[in-house]
């Protein structure tokens, strides 16, 4: 296409590149960091803060002493330089994790129980990816973990398990024949019979696969936080569902009982409930009963978190359209069927983020038991570690480690909950 006019261009000019300030990193920085005078000030302040933090913390961290017997030795090694004394961790990490009284040759037991926790909860947490039959592992885990951590003969958890299985089958049989209520009674009776008979078997075989027993008062450290958190959340979930259903009930007396219980528990701090567990609860049991402190604390914390979970689930129930309830009725389902098959699966799905929040909050609140002089992670640090002559004053290192442990677990749980929310989202947005 040669042109006959020499002043007309025949070839196309290449595109000139965009101005440097409108591309790449510069454009991004202009838009995100320096888009106005206020933004610029904020950016400068933020950068200053980060630099200040890093400059302040890095030498402390990098010069950290990991090998020393006490604080004085740490200071001698540092010789005036800024530096952390992480030796407290290498010296006392077993106390922080397992408490001060757990026998040292048994540390593998709670460790194994902790490691087994992940494969056993996986079928429940990742239901889409793990076949349903692996849920058996989840069901068996509590018994195994009890045996590992507390020791004693394996017959105790086995008998308990057989009793529960018998109760389940009795419930299924009787519920088909004569309704939910009779099923419940039958289940309780079956379990009671098995446990009574199992008592004799356990006595006879008390040495069978027995691990050395560890008393509840010897539990401590982060292990105690984990035990309290896992046990109380698992127990309070069914209790919370019952309370939420009771609060939604049309029967005024049942509703009243649930409302009073929930509002009372939610109105008082956990510490007062722990005081109750510590000094008052024993008065309410028959004379001569001697419940472990840890068991009393579990009772109170479970009641505490059940009330909060009940409120979350009530929100889920209230969010369901009324048509779902009416659909259940029009299909001719009775109350327990409608709840089990239609209402609760949807309500619980909506409630998952709230329940996880409660669980995370509860796990953090297990540190409060240090106030009633139980030696959980915080209790061990405040008591035996910071008050020992070797390590007075190394609070940053010790509490930083505690904070890190809690952060890892709680952040992990909340990330899981966000993932689950995305997985369960069935509507198209």
């Amino acid at each position, binding site marked *: 296409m040669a042109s006959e006019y020499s002043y007309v261009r025949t070839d196309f000019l290449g595109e000139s590149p965009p101005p440097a300030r409108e591309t790449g990193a510069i454009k991004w920085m202009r*838009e*995100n*960091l320096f*888009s106005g005078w206020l*933004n610029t000030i*904020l*950016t400068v302040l*933020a*950068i200053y*803060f*980060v630099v200040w933090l890093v400059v302040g913390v890095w030498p402390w961290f990098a010069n950290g002493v990991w090998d020393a017997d006490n604080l004085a030795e740490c200071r001698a090694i540092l010789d005036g330089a800024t530096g952390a004394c992480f030796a407290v961790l290498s010296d006392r990490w077993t106390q922080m994790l397992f408490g001060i009284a757990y026998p040292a040759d048994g540390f593998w037991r709670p460790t194994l129980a902790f490691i087994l926790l992940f494969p056993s909860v996986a079928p429940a947490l990742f239901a889409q990816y793990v076949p349903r039959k692996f849920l058996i592992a989840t069901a068996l885990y509590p018994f195994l973990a009890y045996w590992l951590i507390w020791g004693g003969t394996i017959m105790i958890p086995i008998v308990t398990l057989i009793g529960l299985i018998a109760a389940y089958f009795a419930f299924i049989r009787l519920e088909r024949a004569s309704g939910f209520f009779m099923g419940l009674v039958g289940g309780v009776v079956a379990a009671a019979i098995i446990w009574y008979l199992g008592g004799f078997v356990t006595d006879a075989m008390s040495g069978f696969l027995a691990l050395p027993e560890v008393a509840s008062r010897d539990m401590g450290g982060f292990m105690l936080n984990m035990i309290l958190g896992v046990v109380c959340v698992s127990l309070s979930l069914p209790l919370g569902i019952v309370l939420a259903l009771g609060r939604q009930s*049309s*029967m*005024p*007396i*049942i509703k009243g*009982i649930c409302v009073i219980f929930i*509002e*009372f528990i*939610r*109105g*008082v*701090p*956990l*510490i*007062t409930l722990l*005081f*109750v567990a510590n*000094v*008052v609860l*024993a*008065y*309410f*049991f*028959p*004379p001569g009963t001697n419940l472990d402190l840890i068991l009393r604390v579990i009772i109170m914390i479970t009641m505490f978190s059940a009330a909060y979970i009940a409120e979350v689930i009530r929100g889920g129930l209230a969010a369901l359209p009324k048509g779902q309830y009416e659909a259940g009725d029009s299909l001719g389902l009775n109350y327990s069927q409608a709840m089990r098959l239609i209402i609760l699966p949807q309500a619980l799905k909506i409630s998952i983020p709230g329940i996880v929040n409660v669980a*995370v909050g509860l796990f*953090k*609140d297990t*540190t*409060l038991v*240090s*106030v009633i002089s139980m030696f959980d992670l*915080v209790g061990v640090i*405040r008591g035996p570690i910071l008050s020992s002559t070797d390590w007075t*004053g190394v*609070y*940053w290192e010790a*509490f*930083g480690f*505690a*904070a890190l442990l*809690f*952060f890892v677990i*709680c*952040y992990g749980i*909340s990330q899981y909950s966000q993932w689950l929310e995305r997985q369960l989202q069935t509507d198209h947005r």
Partner: protein
Amino acid sequence: MSTTTDPDTRPDGFRLGMLINDTRYRSYTFQFIALVLLILGLGYLISNLLDNLARAGLNISWAFLGEPAGYDINQRPIEYTSQSTHARASMVGAINTLIVAFLACISATVIGVVAGVLRLSNNWIVSKLMSVYVEAFRNVPVLIWILIIFLAMSNALPQPRTFRGDDATSSMLFDAIAVTNRGVYIPSFVNGAGSLIFWIVVIASIVGVFWYRKYAKKVLYATGRMLPTFLPSLGILIVPGLLAYFILGRPVTLEYPELSGFNFKGGIHLRLSLIALWFALAIYTGAFIAENVRAGIQAVSKGQTEAAGALGLRPGRIMNLVILPQALRVIIPPLISQYLNITKNSSLAIAVGYMDITGTLGGITLNQTGRAIEAILLLMLFYLVVSLSISAIMNVYNNRMKLQER
């Protein structure tokens, strides 16, 4: 009644089996059973309680409240000596609880709103920094924060004696505030003659500002004329107070803390335990409030901002008049429960020795008198009353802010 309701299927009226099979009566049966079980259960617990008390030779008695407490409380907002009664000690503790809860609620709200708004900012580094703050504080127990802040302050801050002498290594801020490892000393007001009138004028001018703003709004709605608000408000707030201050001959003076002996005297002494508790609660709860604020602002659809922009509102006005009023409706209910959490978490004071009601009534009084049941019952009652009042007040506010529907 039952005979007349449904003659076709129930010709012979009420039968006993209907108590369990007929849905009309079954609920009564269930409720009756539940009530009987509850009464039996409570009766069992109470009989155990009485039995145990009798065995231990104890009884339930409230007389200990009238006896002299015999211990000192370091922070005394009202008159208290160790000769005062346990009831008085509990009251001091209750006021201390309310003081720290109030301070923490206000600062947590400020921190939370700032962090929540900044987390949504376009500024990458600022929003990331705020995410780190929120996640770091939400996922670590508040007890650990309280202890870290308390220990860090009591170890890192200078001792009062470093303020002394010519070669002092520490100095007071503005010659008025002394930050030491025993606490922070700030100036206090000393009321002279005529101070009452001065304070009345100050309060009246605060009321006046609110009244003026209401008036300006009324004029705006009635005529569309926008009265200036900022400068007149400032004037109403400051001028009458200043005039009264000088006319009355400076009735109110400041008392500055001064170093005497080994410690500071005068002014207001904010103890380290109070400050640690206050800061920890504020920063911890602020992270939660930041999340609520962020969720609330994100709940307002983008079309609202664009619509307001299309109407020609300035960005500041868009935030104040369009976004915030709608976001507040989403923010306030969770904010109420955060305030309740602060009040309840303030009971962690016992970990740093701040004498709140858990420290006095639930701590020393309980241990000295051994009246565990009574003391804990009173303690729970106090928190219950506070919680219920906070939620009642905030619910009233929430109802006022709610969308007015037909």
